[in-house]
């Protein structure tokens, strides 16, 4: 019962915190640019406004176009819910598998690319094809990191990974460090952050994610925006769960442990948002054709991580 309640708390927490995190990143970026920036609550207001607005559909939009926002949001919300955030043994922890996570994210991306092409505008098509290119480069890197962690812990279950790293003194390993760098690059690419895509632009030639969702309006757009906010939260939680699991509650019966888990999770999110804002301000967007090298680098680092694992365990 308690487990189920806490799982529900996690579901609610994700949706409640995601806009705040996005607001925090925007605010920090604005401050770093010496602007005052919008309030931290602005993303909530944006979402509410979009929810109240009327949906404008192109005349040739099919049922796919109308259902996909719900599919995307549901897939990403579920994916985020299986990542252990503040505690390890929640109700969904049996399904919380890294490969399932990659699959959920991939299906959300596939649906969104279909929606981008559905209406038949050229921007949607460009956005979809670029998104697919980025995905085809980022996914192998993500899987390499998954394999590395799985080899180290001998499991692909996320709560088990976090548990193992919390209880066993693994120390700092070359493999884990390389995997962390690789996963950070993947996270930037998957969340359409700056060296790969610019989340704030509507400039025709550079946008990827925004080009795909250009035709959406009203509550559909609200859902898609919320989904990308939850996705950002998901990646920060994932990195925190796999590489920095400290503070996570292992005993759900202990209210103090749960409170500590919640507190440390909040601190990790704030820290992740801060690092992201700092990184995004200090770097320029990359040309689309250089992405292959950037993400290829992530894949190679993932491969190196797996290789070094054999050095330390080998023979």
């Amino acid at each position, binding site marked *: 019962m308690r487990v189920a309640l806490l799982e529900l708390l996690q579901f609610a927490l994700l949706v409640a915190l995601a806009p705040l995190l996005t607001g925090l990143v925007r605010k920090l970026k604005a401050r770093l640019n010496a602007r005052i920036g919008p309030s931290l609550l602005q993303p909530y207001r944006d979402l509410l406004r979009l929810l109240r607005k009327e949906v404008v559909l192109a005349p040739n939009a099919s049922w796919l176009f109308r259902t996909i926002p719900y599919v995307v949001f549901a897939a990403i919300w579920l994916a985020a819910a299986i990542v252990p955030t503040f505690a390890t043994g929640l109700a969904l922890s049996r399904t919380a598998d890294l490969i399932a996570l990659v699959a959920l994210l991939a299906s959300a991306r596939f649906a969104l690319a279909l929606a981008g092409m559905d209406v038949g505008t050229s921007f949607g098509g460009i956005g979809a094809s670029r998104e697919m290119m980025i995905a085809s480069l980022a996914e192998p890197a993500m899987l390499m990191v998954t394999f590395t962690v799985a080899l180290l812990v001998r499991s692909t279950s996320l709560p088990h990974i976090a548990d193992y790293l919390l209880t066993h*003194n*693994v*120390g*700092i*390993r*070359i493999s884990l*460090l*390389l995997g962390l*760098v690789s996963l950070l690059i993947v996270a930037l690419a998957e969340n359409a952050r700056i060296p790969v895509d610019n989340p704030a632009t509507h400039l025709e030639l550079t946008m990827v994610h925004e080009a795909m969702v250009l035709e959406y309006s009203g509550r559909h757009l609200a859902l898609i925006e919320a989904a990308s906010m939850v996705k950002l939260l998901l990646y920060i939680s994932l990195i925190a769960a796999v590489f920095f699991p400290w503070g996570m509650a292992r005993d759900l019966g202990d209210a103090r442990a749960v409170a500590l888990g919640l507190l440390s999770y909040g601190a990790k999110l704030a820290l992740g948002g801060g690092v992201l804002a700092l990184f995004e301000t200090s770097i320029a967007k990359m040309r689309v054709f250089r992405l*292959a*090298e950037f993400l*290829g*680098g992530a894949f*190679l*680092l993932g*491969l*190196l991580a797996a*290789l*070094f694992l*054999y*050095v*330390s*365990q*080998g*023979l």
Partner: protein
Amino acid sequence: MPGFATLPYDVAHVLDTLVLVLSFALLYQRRLFGVLTIYAWQALLLAAAAAWQAYAQDAPHLYITAGIALVFKAIIIPIALHRIIVYLDIHRTIETALGVGATLTVGVALVALSILLVLPVTTASGALTRESLAAALSVVLLGLLMMITRRNAVSQVVGFMSLENGLILAAVGVKGMPLVVELSIAFSVMVAFIIFGVFFFHIRERFDTLDIHDMERFRGERR
């Protein structure tokens, strides 16, 4: 797994890894000044690694190695190369003999090779020595790779010096290496010598003379 999860090893690990990652960053970077900055960071981390080993092994002479790495490699050489680039008005974008993607792939293959080499040799020693040695050997091989794949003299020199960083990394990681100090001094002098040697060689090759006057005339014509 024995030998892990103690602070000295952990910190040494982090530093080794970062040096290796910066070797890859060198292969990835296309701008000359970017290459110099990354090289300076690598030397700084090498100095930190040497200092840490000096503290962890209680071997004061390694502090000297760290100092040499810090002063010569992290500060003087990058600044000198920077000034040479500005002075010689060299093209700032590096032409690579091989594409960046292909270079990185070869780089990973070289790391795999160095792991395969290190594994059978170090069966008796612990996992830490193995990982450190593998990382150091990889840095050496990546430096060689950088020298092969770059057409620009400056980046070739940087490749050579990053190779030497790998050698020192291997030397400081192993206990009881009193020769390290002398070796690193000798190497630093040699590095400086090679920097100028390569430059003079390239300049002479291009202008048939080392005379500054001829170079000025040449630059004047190009403008």
